[in-house]
């Protein structure tokens, strides 16, 4: 097997008396979309932030692209962060800068010259379908457009890994699907490795190759999404059944899922 794109080994983090992460191990392969499902407070957010060291773990090692980022500090840590992009639930765009300068922001941090920044920003806005919005301010864009813009910005410094922090949780269902499809496209076309956290099961089932369910700072199950869904004993499968029952009514849902399992 090739070297994992992201590797967490024995990562723990406490905030006072609260254990946010309890000896977490995780391997994400290059080109994989890995999803972590959990309720709020399960530790997903802390876990995601240990990958780019926005949160430094108390113990354990984090490797990104084979490099031990937990050993880095200063300039080299900042360079490593630039290769590990991140998108957020509330987009976190600069409200007083237009779309093109938002996209160019990581390039400014990297010291890329102005002409190159402009060209790259235009290219990226085109990639996410916002070519005509270069001069618009985030306040003039819809939620889905803002997340597209944030994705374009995240890609500006040509990262190998994208961390997604509940990126669709503030969006309606249709827009969620649109953003997820965009992430799946980018994964396929650019070979981008994506690690995402979510509390929405649909996010996992729609685009993730593998997934883990997180509770109280630990993974309670991990595996390929299709296998977890097919396993009657898995929590992911159970959540899927509950969701189907809520949407379709108990009988129909039971029938549909049974049929699905036989097939």
């Amino acid at each position, binding site marked *: 097997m090739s070297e994992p794109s992201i590797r967490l080994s024995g990562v723990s983090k406490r905030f006072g008396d609260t254990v946010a992460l309890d000896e977490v191990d995780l391997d994400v392969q290059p080109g994989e979309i890995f999803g972590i499902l959990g309720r709020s407070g399960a530790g997903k957010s802390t876990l995601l932030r240990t990958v780019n060291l926005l949160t430094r773990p108390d113990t354990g090692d984090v490797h990104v692209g084979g490099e031990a980022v937990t050993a880095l500090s200063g300039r080299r840590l900042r360079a490593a962060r630039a290769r590990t992009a991140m998108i957020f639930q509330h987009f976190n765009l*600069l409200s007083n800068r237009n779309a093109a300068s938002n996209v160019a922001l990581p390039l400014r941090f990297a010291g890329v010259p102005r002409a190159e920044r402009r060209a790259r920003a235009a290219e990226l806005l085109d990639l996410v379908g916002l070519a005509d919005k270069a001069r618009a301010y985030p306040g003039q864009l819809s939620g889905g457009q803002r997340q597209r813009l944030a994705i374009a910005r995240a890609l500006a*410094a040509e990262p190998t890994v994208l961390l997604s922090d509940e990126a669709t949780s503030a969006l309606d269902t249709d827009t969620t699907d649109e953003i997820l499809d965009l992430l799946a496209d980018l994964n396929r076309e650019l070979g981008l490795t994506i690690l995402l956290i979510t509390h929405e099961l649909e996010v996992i089932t729609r685009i993730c190759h593998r997934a883990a369910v997180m509770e109280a700072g630990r993974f309670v199950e991990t595996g390929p999404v299709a296998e977890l869904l097919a396993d009657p004993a898995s929590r992911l499968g159970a959540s899927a059944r509950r969701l189907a029952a809520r949407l379709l009514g108990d009988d129909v849902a039971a029938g549909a899922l049974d049929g699905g399992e036989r097939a």
Partner: protein
Amino acid sequence: MIELLYESLLETLHIVGVSGAWTLLGGLVVGVVLYVTSKSGPRPFAVVNQPLGLAVNIGRSAPFVLLMVAVVPLTRAITGTTIGTEAAIVPLVIASIPFFARLVESALLEVQPGLIEAARSMGAGVPALVWRVVLPEATPGLIRGFTVTLVAVVSYSAMAGIVGGGGLGDLAYRYGYQRFQTEYMIWPLVVLVVLVQLFQILGDGCARTLDRR
């Protein structure tokens, strides 16, 4: 009368202009340092933050009239004199830098934490974070804070008469109050009100134009 009023207005504008420029510069620097080193800032550093915060609080709690007298030795060291317009500017700047610095600090603290996290995730160091993210996002708030400061400077400048600083306040005091010429009391006041209104309208306008939220 018109001539005196005009002369005094120019003196006031001179005092407010020069003090305002120094205050803008000094207040921004002190405010940014307070923000960066504060407990919830990007680089907490109590050894710098606490003494600086204390100095700012002392500067803000001293009544201006007392401050003006207290800093006389410093004024002499800087300007070579303790009377006149230049001598009035020194205490004015000393009084208004702490005032503006606190407003700068609070405007910067209001920038969404998520934005700072996003910038850090892109590999921004503290200087880039402050220069490229925090200051641009806080610009409307900074302008509003500076407008408030400038209005306070106008009002302080009226006391500059005590050190022979001239200006509209001095005119009103010497001619209007000490010589019982009521119209010399009223007209400088009217001009001051108009001046403050102008500053406020200008400041609000700039802040609104730059605010894209």
